[in-house]
């Protein structure tokens, strides 16, 4: 059966219909999310989340008519830069929302900065994207290490698992997420005993799975996307039984139905779970399940929250929604998103609650049950900002934790 969102189709006039005009004016929003390639499922969900919120508001946010234009960055910085320019220069986008691949985000951001158009990132996770104050870049989604730093503390102190083996994907997100975990884990007095990094899209995980140190108390995994499926399959196939704690994307709701049994009991940390119990999430989940026959997930929520944040910013903008106007308003945004309270720090990075979750079967479905919450986590966690910024970046620390 079809699992894909039925949105998509003709991009130019999908979403809320063409040429929306609200009482306060109108704004063209460029959605720059992948619709093809390995991240298509993520991009589709972000778009779907955004449009769902917009639809729930009748196509208007704070009385601004919103015109949505979607373009596909095709997972390629060259194409993405072209598309960003097209959105701004041809379609007149006043804000660009999206981006999954961090390399693409790095390539696109300087242009939007120079064009004075705000950029709201919804998935791309590189830590370094939100390290300059006062720019026009915002991110509702996580940084590579933001959601895993609380996990290090939690696994060491709360779960009492004293030694960890890290299994990560061998690229910047893998290093950052692992590094975030490793830093707080070791600072809490526990020990990383092994680090294994596998290339993206590793077809056969056996070489890595069989190397895992079986004496470790816990395996910390950063294997988002289809690698998660293959990793867990090999992990179970080779009969390993060390508990797994993962960066939340590894047990994303997009993957859970596919992973099934193999994900049973995997714990993870993330800023969202569909089973969070609050009114905003209820609204979101209800709207979503009415339209799609599958669970919400972080990507859909990122899209939804981005729309909410935009709405909040626009309510502060008086008159013509200029780039500067939106940027300035966005800095003060504080909303109740499905994930809980959300606001931005000086660097444009979202501050939100992080949830400790465990894959469990509920009513015949696999879900990420929330077992604990760490409130108001920012991208520097509990570290002093200035001190933190002196640390070498995590991608330089790869391989040093286990020493």
């Amino acid at each position: 059966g079809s699992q894909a969102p039925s949105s998509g189709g003709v991009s130019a006039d999908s979403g809320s219909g063409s040429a929306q005009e609200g009482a306060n004016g109108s704004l063209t929003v460029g959605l720059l999310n992948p619709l093809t390639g390995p991240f298509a499922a993520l991009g589709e969900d972000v778009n779907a989340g955004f449009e769902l919120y917009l639809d729930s508001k009748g196509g208007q946010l704070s009385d601004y008519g919103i015109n949505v234009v979607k373009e596909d960055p095709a997972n390629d910085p060259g194409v993405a830069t072209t598309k960003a320019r097209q959105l701004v220069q041809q379609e007149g986008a006043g804000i660009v929302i999206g981006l999954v691949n961090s390399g693409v985000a790095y390539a696109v951001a300087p242009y939007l900065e120079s064009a004075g158009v705000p950029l709201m990132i919804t998935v791309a996770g590189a830590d370094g994207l939100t390290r300059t104050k006062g720019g026009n870049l915002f991110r509702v989604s996580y940084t590579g290490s933001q959601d895993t730093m609380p996990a290090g503390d939690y696994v060491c102190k709360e779960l009492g698992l004293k030694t960890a083996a890290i299994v990560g994907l061998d690229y910047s997100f893998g290093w950052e997420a692992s590094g975030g975990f490793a830093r707080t884990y070791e600072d809490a007095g526990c020990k990383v005993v092994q680090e294994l990094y596998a290339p993206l899209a590793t077809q056969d995980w056996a070489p890595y799975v069989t190397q895992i140190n079986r004496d470790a108390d816990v395996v910390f995994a950063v294997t988002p996307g289809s690698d998660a499926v293959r990793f867990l399959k090999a992990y179970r196939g080779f009969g390993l039984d060390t508990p797994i704690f993962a960066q939340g994307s590894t047990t994303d709701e997009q993957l859970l139905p596919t992973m099934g049994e193999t994900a049973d009991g995997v714990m993870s940390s993330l800023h969202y779970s569909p089973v969070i119990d609050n009114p905003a999430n209820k609204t979101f989940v209800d709207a979503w399940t009415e339209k799609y026959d599958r669970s919400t997930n972080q990507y859909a929520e990122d899209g939804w929250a981005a729309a909410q944040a935009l709405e909040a910013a626009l309510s502060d903008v008086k008159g013509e929604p200029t780039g500067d106007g939106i940027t300035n308003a966005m800095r003060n945004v504080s909303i109740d998103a499905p994930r809980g309270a959300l606001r931005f720090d000086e660097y444009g990075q979202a501050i939100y609650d992080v949830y400790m979750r465990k894959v469990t079967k509920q009513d015949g479905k696999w879900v990420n049950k929330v077992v604990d919450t760490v409130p108001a986590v920012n991208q520097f966690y509990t570290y002093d900002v200035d001190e933190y910024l002196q640390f070498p970046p995590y991608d330089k620390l790869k391989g040093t934790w286990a020493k």
Partner: protein
Amino acid sequence: MVWLSNVLNGLAFGSLLFLVASGLTITFGLMRTINLAHGAFYLVGGYLAFDLYVRTGSYWLSLVVAVVVTAVIGMLVERLLLHRLLNQELPQIILTVGVSLMIGDLLLTQYGGSPISPPTPAGLEGSMQLFGSVIFPKFRAFLIVLALVLAALIMAFLRFSSIGAKVRSAVDDQEIARTIGIRVPLIFLLVFGAGTALAAFAGVWGGALTSLSPDTGLDVLLLALVVVVVGGLGSVPGALIAAFAVGLLDQFGKVLFPEWSLFTIYAPVALFLAFRPNGLLGKVESR
């Protein structure tokens, strides 16, 4: 004992590579038809079988139907499109890239971008103990056997039927092949069908070993290309040896030099081909 488990894993992964490559040794090695849509047919087989399995619950029925349907699709592609491009390698490249783009996109719209994980057939789940300490999944052990059996079958077929020679004759000189009465279009149709059937077959098993998503087609295609070419075009034993070699290289490379994981296949392959430009068992192109 660690090395034993590494060897077994390398062989198992190599077996999967051989399954994928077996279809390519036929279409690519024998027919010299550059079929860059092989990865797409792999996916079609895997997805179809998965879909059918979800609907019917019968593993083997799904397998057979998926393989047959994919073969028919492949034959349609051959007859309607590829056949006009016999011996024109460059247009073949474009055409098959085009076909795989289309198939990839259809799969994306039909099944979404999230990965699927076709089931392991009944009886092959779980793992077994070897020599006391080595745990090895049954399914992987079965794959090794399957690859060997398949290799033997294909070799026997090529040896005892003249169809392989007929195909190669048409590749050598299509005009003259026709003048000795070889029905080139028919033979190419059947052989291409066999190639896509093998791709689909590999898709079902490969999907169960790893997983499938619309973008795995490319990864699989590249690895299969490596195997076929390193083995020597058209040589089934060559492909088998190359598949195992690549599987072992991959396994040990990732264990011994994890820092260089992206090199462990391609750099040695480049070196190898620089010194043996006709692959392992490839024949020197005459003329």
